[in-house]
């Protein structure tokens, strides 16, 4: 297994803005500016005629930013790889200020079947205007076998000599890469669950846990989220009820780190958040298994015992260190994750307390993962994932969760979270594979069809983008209903393992 390292970003614990500015190389900053300019040009030329002042301004800005970057680096290469965007081989990190724009650019490029765009010195405003118009036009077209060739011809006819476009990496290579990444993601998940198990056992027996193993598990999760988030999130659909406590901790860590990524946290900050999430339920190791795994409703006494787990988590983590510092941030997350932002949860707070934002993130991830499991809602049918998200939005005050972070979770998962079983208007049955990369299609996820219209089982179905349209502009397929996968004998985990 190869664990590629990201570009060097010096560690700095400061504000998010400071951290972002400090860690970005100039290439990254200039690349970001270029991408924003491309986005603005795409949007404005789509909305307004080319003579429009707004459209003209955005072309001016595009010409300026790209010229500056090319003067500094010799050329500009924009490359799309999966959901990742590279400018001159430097990966641009998505954050709250940019993810929607960047996703739009990725989506437009992909629809136009462009994987790489290279711009060299001498490019002028006219060339950009023609190219942007062509990209918009080709992106709107139906899929065709020679779409890119046609685009290239039009580019040549349009007198564009300083910009070239190339296809994405071959689909075969994509498949191989996808399989390899899936294997890596699976190993990360398996290892994390095993370590959670070992950690709980150590805590139960009063032994010191191996801090480095936990660190490695969380580092693995952060790497996966940064490189191949969609596969790892898919694995959170694993509902191993015998191992609920362990898979739950891993799942919460995956959701939390993924949300953190959307919030623009740097790698070290994601690690801090991941550690907190991974260890948030460590106190449960000290609750008896009879109470923890009880199938029915808990008695008052049992419930009181259960409510001790945040405190037990914090105290357990006091001994969770070898020669390093005490993991305060993780202790706070373990202690606060049931308090609620209104502090009406447990444990009660007498002294003034502002919940840590990491605790708030972990709370949202925790509630979501718990709600999608049978275990927590004892005796109650589990809600469908999309219903849970809606409930989190509607009932956030009672649940004591931060509604802004629920939005962030929806941004991450889409309206139909990964693993949701859906029926399409074609009467096909499908499983949601991931959120649509284009935020404007948040209700049109990527899916894998499991059963055809006539009930035939589909094996190894490719991923289908529900945002795909017919030539008349209507969507090819639309979700009409969310359904219980068990009704159709579907074990969701099998779609991701």
């Amino acid at each position, binding site marked *: 297994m190869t*664990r590629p390292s990201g570009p060097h970003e010096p560690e700095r614990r400061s504000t998010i803005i400071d951290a972002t500015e400090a860690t970005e190389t100039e290439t990254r900053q200039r690349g970001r500016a270029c991408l924003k300019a491309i986005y603005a040009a795409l949007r404005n030329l789509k909305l307004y005629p080319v003579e429009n002042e707004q459209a003209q301004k955005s072309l001016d800005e595009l010409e300026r930013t790209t010229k500056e970057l090319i003067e500094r680096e010799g050329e500009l290469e924009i490359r799309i790889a999966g959901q990742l965007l590279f400018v001159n081989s430097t990966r641009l990190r998505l954050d709250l*200020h940019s993810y929607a724009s960047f996703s739009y650019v990725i989506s437009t490029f992909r629809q136009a079947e462009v994987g790489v765009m290279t711009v060299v010195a001498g490019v002028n405003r006219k060339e950009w205007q023609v190219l942007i118009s062509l990209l918009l036009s080709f992106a709107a077209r139906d899929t065709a076998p020679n779409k890119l060739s046609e685009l290239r011809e039009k580019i040549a006819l349009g007198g564009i000599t300083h910009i070239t476009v190339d296809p994405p990496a071959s689909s075969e290579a994509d498949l191989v890469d996808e399989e390899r990444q899936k294997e890596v993601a699976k190993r990360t998940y398996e290892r994390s669950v095993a370590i959670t198990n070992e950690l709980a056992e150590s805590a139960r027996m009063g032994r010191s846990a191996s801090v*480095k193993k936990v660190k490695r598990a969380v580092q693995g999760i952060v790497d996966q989220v940064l490189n191949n988030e969609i596969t790892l999130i898919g694995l959170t659909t694993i509902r191993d009820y015998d191992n609920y406590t362990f898979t739950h901790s891993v799942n919460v860590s995956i959701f939390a780190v993924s949300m953190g990524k959307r919030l623009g946290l740097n790698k070290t900050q994601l690690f801090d958040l991941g550690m907190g999430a991974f260890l948030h339920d460590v106190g449960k190791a000290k609750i008896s298994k009879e109470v923890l795994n009880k199938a029915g409703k808990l008695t008052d006494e049992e419930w009181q015992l259960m409510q001790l787990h945040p405190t037990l988590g914090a105290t357990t983590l006091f001994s969770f260190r070898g020669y390093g510092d005490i993991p305060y941030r993780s202790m706070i997350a373990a202690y606060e994750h049931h308090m609620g932002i209104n502090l009406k949860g447990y*444990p009660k707070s*007498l002294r003034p307390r502002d919940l840590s934002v990491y605790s708030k993130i972990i709370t949202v991830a925790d509630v979501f993962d718990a709600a999608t499991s049978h275990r927590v809602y004892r005796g109650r049918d589990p809600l469908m994932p999309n219903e849970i998200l809606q409930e989190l939005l509607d009932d956030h005050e009672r649940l004591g969760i931060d509604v802004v972070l629920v939005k*962030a979770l929806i941004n991450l998962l889409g309206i139909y979270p990964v693993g949701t079983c859906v029926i399409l208007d074609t009467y096909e049955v499908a499983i949601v594979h991931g959120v649509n990369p284009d935020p404007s299609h948040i209700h049109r996820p990527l899916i894998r069809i499991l059963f055809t219209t006539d*009930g035939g089982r589909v094996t190894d179905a490719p991923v289908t983008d529900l945002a795909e349209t017919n030539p008349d502009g209507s969507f090819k397929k639309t979700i009409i*209903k969310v359904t219980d996968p068990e009704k159709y004998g579907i074990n969701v985990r099998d779609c991701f393992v």
Partner: protein
Amino acid sequence: MTETTDPEFLTDTTLVERAMHRMAKCHRAIILYLANNPVYHEAVRNVQAAFHELWEEEDQLLIHVTEDGLVWNGKLIIEEENKGDSISWVLFKDGVRGVVFEPSVEDDELVRFLSAIHQTRNLPEDADDDLLTLLWHEEFQYIKYDYIDVGLDDQRPLEHSDQHEEAPLVSSVQQEVAEEAKRPEGIVNIEDFDSTLHFLDDDEIQYLDSEIEREYNQDLRRIVLSGLFDVLELQHDQTGYDEIVTILEDFIPYLLGAGDFQSVAYILREVQVVIQRSERLRPDHREKLATFATKLSDPEALDQLLQTLDEAHVHPTEEDLGALFSEFQPKAMETILAWLPRLLNERAKDLLARATDQLAIAHPTAVKRSLNSEDRTVVLGGLGLVTRLKLTTLGPDLGKLMSHEDTDVREALVDALATVATPSAFTQLEQLLDDGDREVRIAAVRTLGAKRQGGALGRVEAAVTGKTLRTADLTEKRAFYEAFGILAGKDGVSRLAAIGLGQGLLKRKTDPETRACAAMALGKTRSADAHPALEKLVRDKEPIVRNAAEKALKELG
């Protein structure tokens, strides 16, 4: 290993071998020398040169890691038998099985990579980190590595379930949809999800930014401690109380070691709050908590704290230290006073002195106790506090120091008595005019003069006119004469003039030094009557007398 005969391949092997050997040498240089050592620099330059050469032939370098050494293209390039400085052993032990180096690695990353290996070698077995966790934080761009999970046995592979999907009947899907259609609220309605809810607006983004900024600016220890105290106060169930009390107790030395004095002060303060407010505390817990502050004021514990303070690289603010010291018991005073003069760090000394002042103000009885100490340093510190802080209430406790065997103590006592400034204190000061030590006598007489204590005139006059000063040195003589001049004023002019001019019975016998002292004292009388005598004295044949008279005249104006 299979040797190849391909000449081109042989060339490559040589380049790789050279790069790897120089890497091993560079690693040894990192182990043996500091980064500013010329040998270290040379080793880095050599490995950089070797990699530069290599990149002319190779696009990347994939090295396999074995227990015995580093392998390239199936050939053992470096055999490292000595585990003491072996790169391959550290890599192998922590699970690394392959490393890929790419061009530019030699610029900066290679040294960081080797440093991480060196750092790992020094880590204890149960450290929080291993090579992999350290490498992760380096975020290498030109180094990639494969690893296996070492020591993780209970790893269950994720496998497909045994469940076999049954193909749904077309009719059942349609039926489900149709049934839901009768209940429109069950059908997914995209409108339920207002699109504005999907995106975070500017205010929300700003809110999250500020929350993350807050996350990294907050006092994590304080938050954790606050939670523990809440649990102590609010938790109904006593489960874990013992553990929390023990954690808090153990935490104090940890915090002191970390130089976090403010958190220790917080613990001591909140312990008092919990003891007062919580009715649920068991008596044994209450008792144990109450001992926290007492224990911290114990000489042994305090010794450690002050040592930490003296040796600390980063010093606490005055506020932090003051907060901690305000929680100390009075018995801490003696240890602190004993330490103060010994502190080497001036900044720490200054902070401690100020904090001690606060403690003395809060606990004057502790200062009183220090005056009875057998340690002269403590007594001196106590007297210093009386003087500096004007602790007049401690006047009655100073008397017993009149006979203290240490001269420095009696000298410091002079200042303290002057500060207390009660009639009784001045009486004691007068007694010190007869002290066996010259310095004490000088200090006492100067103080009495400066304070214009007329009551002391008799004793001073007796000294001036008597035999006691005959053998004294110039400084002491001058001190007494000047004090006499101040205290006697106009009434002392004739006597001083007589001494200065050498008239009367003492004529011819009065030495020039004494006459010079008398001349200085005439100036101190501030009386116009002193002018005639001084006018004569400025023409005296003795230079010392003339000089003293000139100064005195200037003082008279």
